[in-house]
């Protein structure tokens, strides 16, 4: 429905904000742009909204090029990072502003605005001014002011970042509900990976003006495209390994791959770690059988299973540090190969830590959880 084709944008001679960004957002989708500060998320939103022009590339909405239209001619609305509510208008006037500008009768616009306000649970605040509202209430006014116009696309620039932790979690649920109720396509910007995972249908992970990976939350978490994505989304251990000749055994283990379910092929292969032990890992590479030489393996701390040193099938290592965190316990481990990893164990039953610093342990990695990164 909205399609960005090969968008590039620079500010001046040396600031490159966006490099060849392309993606398509589907009707009714909750699409998230996720990335660290300065990676070009706001710039991308401003381009879609019409506040910024591209150096090259096209912005298509329902198949038509909108890149040359001014903001007021685009069926797109924005929830600004600082809300940008009009301080000299009350809540009702703020919400009705868009309809009024589109030439809708004042009375009718006010009626719709009241209905919209009750949808965001602000019925009693219509006559207040923005300065008289809490952060969460201002946030909801900003949402109502944009949603009342039923835009084809709603752009949200870090709408939750100004709220405190508790409110952020509440607003998250509300945001998702509003998106489902209204059926409007959301393009949501955040640098909070937890927020992105919880809300999105799909996530585009950005870095330095480039899109590094686009996928469903489970895909970007389970099958990160590269080291940056693996590191940025959640916590990841990296292990150095080698694939020997004939290490890739094609789809042999792939049949047992339980996290599949999408069309992309996942293969498994044998990888030798630094201490000579071998493990089975998965790879997105269509031709895993051809993969040779040095690779990096990624595994999440919560997927590392620890056992007593004697247990066979584990990679040997020693515990450096134990941190008890209530519902979980965190272990820092140095493997025999020299790799340092973290392991997170859930304290589902016993109240005692299983291992102490200095203990020799075996770390087991399930083949489904060991992921070969493409360098």
């Amino acid at each position, binding site marked *: 429905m909205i399609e960005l084709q090969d968008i590039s944008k620079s500010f001046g001679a040396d600031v490159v904000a966006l490099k060849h960004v392309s993606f398509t957002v589907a009707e009714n989708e909750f699409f998230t742009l996720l990335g660290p500060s300065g990676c070009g998320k706001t710039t991308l939103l401003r381009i879609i909204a019409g506040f910024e022009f591209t150096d090259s590339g096209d912005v298509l909405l329902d198949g038509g090029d909108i890149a040359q239209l001014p903001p007021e001619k685009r069926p797109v*609305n924005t929830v600004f990072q600082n809300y*940008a509510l009009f301080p000299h208008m009350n809540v009702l006037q703020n919400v009705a502003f868009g309809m009024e500008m589109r030439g809708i009768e004042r009375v009718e616009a006010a009626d719709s605005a009241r209905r919209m306000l009750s949808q965001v649970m602000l019925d009693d605040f219509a006559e207040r001014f923005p300065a008289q509202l809490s952060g969460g209430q201002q946030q909801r006014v900003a949402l109502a002011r944009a949603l009342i116009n039923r835009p084809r696309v709603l752009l949200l620039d870090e709408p939750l970042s100004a709220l405190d932790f508790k409110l952020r979690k509440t607003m998250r649920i509300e945001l998702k509900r509003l998106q489902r109720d209204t059926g409007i396509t959301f393009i949501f910007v955040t640098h909070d990976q937890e927020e992105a995972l919880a809300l999105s249908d799909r996530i585009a992970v950005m870095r330095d003006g480039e899109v590094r990976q686009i996928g469903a939350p489970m895909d970007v978490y389970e099958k990160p495209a590269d080291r940056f994505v693996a590191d940025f989304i959640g916590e990841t251990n990296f292990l150095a390994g080698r694939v020997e000749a004939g290490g890739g055994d094609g789809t042999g283990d792939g049949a047992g791959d339980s996290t599949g379910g999408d069309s992309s092929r996942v293969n498994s292969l044998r990888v030798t770690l630094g201490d000579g032990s071998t493990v089975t890992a998965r790879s997105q590479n269509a031709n895993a059988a051809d993969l040779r030489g040095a690779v990096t393996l990624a595994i999440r701390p919560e997927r590392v299973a620890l056992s007593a040193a004697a247990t066979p099938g584990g990679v040997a290592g020693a515990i450096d540090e134990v941190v008890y965190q209530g519902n979980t316990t965190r272990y820092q481990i140095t493997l025999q190969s020299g790799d340092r990893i973290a392991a997170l164990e859930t304290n589902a039953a016993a109240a005692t830590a299983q291992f102490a610093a200095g203990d020799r342990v075996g770390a087991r990695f399930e083949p489904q959880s060991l992921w070969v990164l493409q360098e």
Partner: protein
Amino acid sequence: MPGFGAWTWVFYIFLYLPLVILVVFSFNAGRSATVWSGFSLDWYARAFGNESIQRATVNSLIVAFSAMTAATVLALLAALALMRGRRFRGGTVFRVTLLAPLMIPEIVTAVATLTFFSALGMQLGLFNVFIAHTVFCIPFAYLPIAARLSNLDESLECAARDLYAGAWRAFRRVTLPLAMPGIAAGAMLAFIISLDDFVITLMVADAGSTTLPVYIFGMVRMGTSPEINAVSTALLAVTTVIIVFHYYLSNSAKNRP
């Protein structure tokens, strides 16, 4: 530090005592500027009945209102161009030169303006005064407007455009009302500056377009009289009212988001 308090008192006495004396003796029944002989409004009656003073007052008000209007409009346009539009080459030079008249000695500006007008052969009486006043009022009107605009969140304008308002309507409905306290403050400042101006007006004004300060100066040269005190007190009162209003306005503007 002992002594500081005393010096402050000295300062206040030198600043305000002459003004107090002027105001008090404008209500004196007698002619003397030193001996009090009872309360009376006679001098006010005489001053307001004086046709020359009436003409000078009308001139002053015409010039002040028109110069205020023109200077404020021009200052607003300049402020919008400098604070809002795309950064353009020479923007900084423009900003500095716009404010330079505040620091150029007034007598220099006065002589230059006079020379300029006579070189052009421009002898339009009050209109000459209006032009000269508009020019030196612009920087005074500009400062509060620019200060207000620079405090305005630019995303408010973006929000208006985003909500289907064209550039002009976004300006009318959002930028202009939010800039209003600054505009009003700038206008008042321009009004006072024009109303009180003496040096430039003295040079530029011909016999028919004398303003009140220039007329008062002429009267003083013939010797002080309580009539002058009365006119000066009236001028002082008008200025004070505007300053108080201006102060109130800029304070309430600061307290608003």
